[in-house]
């Protein structure tokens, strides 16, 4: 039988005696024991993407008992005087690590357009595709890693894109970390794989280059460069960061035995090996019918994962260099429709931020507990309203990126990374 290419985490680490402990594994192990991490670490972001639009009223901004409150109850949190939904009991205990913005607004009430808006900070524009936060973060520095620095775990319908920065900044997509990383296993012996690569470059690519554009590889295709990077990734020890089965059982259980929980755990591991942005998606929030049941179900998944993630990052001193953002494309209506659901509501919804550059234990903005039914402008019911663009400027500022710096887009139009203004009240 062929000596199968040893690209999988199991081959690298799981077979016992022949395993060589990698520097990564050592680092993770030391961190496990001491909680110490590298203080000079570049800043990273973990985006917990609540796909479908979570209800602010059933999550971070409950108004129980009133006309709009629904069936939810409010519970105290670790921030004095601040309550959140009783559907998030574990998160409530970690709120002192976070800043909660309860007054985010946008002009987009359609899923696709709103996702674009929140992920890029810009509204859809037929002339230009804007980059998402992860792409901007990766573009802003020249760091390198064997594995992609922008990763989307369990990508939803709209994974983060590179936009005008190019597809090289698109998120690398993986599904449930319990499964294998896609396309990194060669499935044949190393010798045979090497022979294929050799035939490709020594013969076929050489023939393709003959008589064509001078310096074809460097000036146009980057074919061999990308192949070499792909081969590096296939054999990289950093791939083990995807493997949450390396973690103790208790840690896995703390995050939750579901793909979102495993995704959050993998996100933490990936940040430790130099990944700059990890997006983990949780769906199930689009509750046009039976809102409470849907929100409750999604919260049961979110709560352990979010609280465990904050705890882990804090214990490992990673919150100083990692920004956690938890939110969706919009909130849900204060009114409950005849199907006991809540519809789309971009006029005041919540986003939770924690970590580097963000003040701890703060709440910014508020929605009215009993807004008039006939209010002409729903924003009148908000205090300290902020826009999605403001949220982006805040995130970039927290990450140490100049949000006002202009990037020359492919159409020759200079464009600031964000056109919003940072929310000073939550920046540390």
């Amino acid at each position: 039988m062929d000596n199968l290419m040893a690209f999988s985490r199991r081959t690298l680490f799981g077979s016992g005696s022949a395993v060589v402990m990698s520097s990564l594994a050592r680092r993770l192990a030391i961190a496990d024991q001491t909680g110490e991490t590298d203080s000079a670490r570049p800043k990273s972001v973990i985006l917990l993407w609540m796909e479908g639009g979570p209800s602010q009223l059933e999550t971070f901004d409950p108004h129980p008992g009133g006309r709009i409150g629904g069936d939810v109850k409010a519970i105290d949190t670790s921030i004095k005087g601040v309550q959140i939904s009783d559907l998030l009991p574990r998160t409530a205990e970690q709120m002192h690590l976070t800043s909660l913005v309860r007054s985010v607004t946008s002009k987009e009430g359609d899923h696709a357009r709103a996702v674009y808006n929140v992920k890029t900070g810009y509204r859809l524009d037929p002339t230009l595709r804007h980059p998402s936060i992860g792409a901007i973060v990766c573009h802003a520095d020249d760091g390198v890693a064997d594995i992609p620095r922008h990763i989307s775990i369990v990508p939803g319908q709209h994974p983060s894109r590179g936009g005008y920065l190019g597809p090289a900044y698109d998120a690398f997509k993986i599904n449930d970390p319990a499964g294998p990383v896609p396309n990194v296993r060669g499935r044949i012996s190393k010798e045979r794989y090497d022979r294929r690569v050799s035939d490709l470059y020594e013969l076929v690519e050489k023939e393709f280059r003959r008589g064509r554009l001078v310096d074809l590889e460097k000036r146009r295709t980057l074919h061999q460069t990308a192949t070499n990077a792909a081969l590096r990734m296939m054999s990289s020890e950093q791939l083990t960061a995807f493997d949450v089965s390396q973690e103790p059982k208790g840690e896995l259980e703390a995050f939750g035995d579901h793909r979102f929980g495993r995704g959050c755990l993998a996100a933490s591991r990936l940040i430790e090996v130099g990944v700059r942005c990890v997006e983990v998606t949780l769906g199930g929030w689009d509750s046009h019918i039976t809102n409470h049941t849907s929100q409750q179900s999604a919260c049961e998944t979110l709560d352990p994962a979010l609280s465990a993630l904050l705890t882990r990052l804090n214990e490992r001193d990673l919150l100083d260099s990692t920004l956690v953002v938890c939110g969706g494309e919009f909130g849900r209506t204060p009114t409950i429709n005849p199907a006991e659901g809540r519809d789309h509501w971009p006029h005041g919804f919540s986003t939770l931020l924690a970590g580097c550059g963000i003040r701890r234990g703060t709440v910014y903005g508020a929605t009215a507990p009993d807004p008039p039914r006939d209010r002409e402008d729903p924003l009148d019911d908000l205090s300290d309203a902020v826009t999605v663009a403001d949220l982006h400027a805040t995130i970039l500022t927290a990450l140490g990126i100049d949000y006002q710096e202009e990037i020359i887009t492919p159409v020759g139009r200079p464009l600031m990374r964000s056109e919003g203004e940072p929310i000073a009240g939550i920046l540390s």
Partner: protein
Amino acid sequence: MPNAKSIFLNTLRWCWFALLVLIAFGYLVSGLSEPSSDDEARPRISNDDIAATVNLVDQHRLASLTAAGLESAPVADWMTICRRLSLALVGNQMSLEEIRELQRLPESERESVHLANLLNDTRFHNYWAERWTRFLVGTDEGQFIVFRRRRFRLWLAEMFSQNRPYDQMVRDLITAEGLWTDKPQVNFLTATFDSNNGQVDPVRLAARTSRAFLGLRIDCLQCHSDFLGNVSLGDASDSRGGLQTDFHQLAAFFSSAKTSELQGVRSGEVDYQYTYLDETEEVSVEPAVPYSPELLPTDGDARSRLATWITHRDNRQAALAAISHVWALMFGRPAGDAVDNLPVDQQTDPMLGALADDFVAGKFNMRRLIRLIARSAPFRVDSRAEFAVTDEHERQHAVFPLVRLRPEQVAGSMIQASRIKKTDRESSLILQLQTLIGTSEFVSQYGDIGEDEFTTDAVTVTQRLLMMNGGITKDVINPDPVLNSLAHIGMFAASDDQAVQSLYLCVVNRYPTESEQKHFVDRLRESPNRKKTREDLTWVLLNSSELAWNH
């Protein structure tokens, strides 16, 4: 005797059942329908009718090369040109079956016959319908749900099938009326419902119209007049900076499209109000065009007037916009900097000008335009030369430009490489399903470039991983005796030489060079496992730049 009769009947029943199973199997794996007999009856196309314009385009190219002091590469071989045609018109390369059929013809006829075949192929109608759908209504789903988009795409496919003149197609879109279910073209308008509370959005349609039909990027004028010198309007000889009024006056044409639930889109009165930058009061905006106002009819419905203006014989800018898009689809990249940015104050590329003049004189005949481009020297010239090829040679069309294939072209070419026969509507259900799912998954992983169809980005690590180890690659190189060309070649190639040649033809649409032939034939002869060696060769070719780039 009753026993014998019973046995006979049982046997007959089982035979009948077996026959049904066999037919069903055959239908699933191979399809039952024979290729249309129209293929053979199809007349050979003479190029005499387009010779004068082709000659003019070629002269312009030669003049520009001479002026730049550049040498031209020779004409490419017929197989390379036919591959380019297939990639441009049906989105994948040639099948081995198509190559073999063309090889039966005199070499001088092969390109023309292949082009004629493709223009009558439903693959062309569907493929171009998808590409045009992207730039007419975008790639965002939003409320423009999949089904509406599909209706729109099918309507466009029918238009390409009928070779409906371009001017009439544009008029159909701009003046569309009715329900989206009944009149699919109305979805050009309804695609903008999501941003305007269920009504046609004049602002988005102005932006779309200016880019798609006028080749002008005036979107920034929505918010402010041009202050960077990026947008020039007015006449070519007397241009001026773009104004905010230009954009909103164009948008005002679409305010006549009213929507009701029962009747869908209907024409009504123009009703467009806007508060311009630095003004405090909203004003009523009357429809007006951003250049050549003398071509705009004074009477009639607003949208009808706009359609007449865009498709006016003397609206050369609009004709150039059409040429620019067809050119980009043929080459995989725009003739200039961008497919939808043809500033009115810049000198028109004389080649595009000649094509635009012919397009208008030929009553906006799309197939004629495609034939013109396909027969012109820029399309037929080789991408390699004896001299050192530079970017400037590509810009001046001294060589064919190297262009990265779009994701769906890569997926289509890989799937086609795994089949001897062309993959189309007459292919087996299994193959059609595999093509649909495989392409969709591949494009999703490879990275759909959305509306930015003609970007020239280099390959990424994710893409290389997908090509090296992904599902389609695995499917193509795993020998499947029923569906896979690799298995067919393994079973039926008369010699190792023929096996290597057939694999090259299947995967990269060319014969191997002498050194390649020798290398891989030797590899086959020396190999203890010839099947694996053929798999390896297929992997190498699938992973080559040659497959993933147009050349």
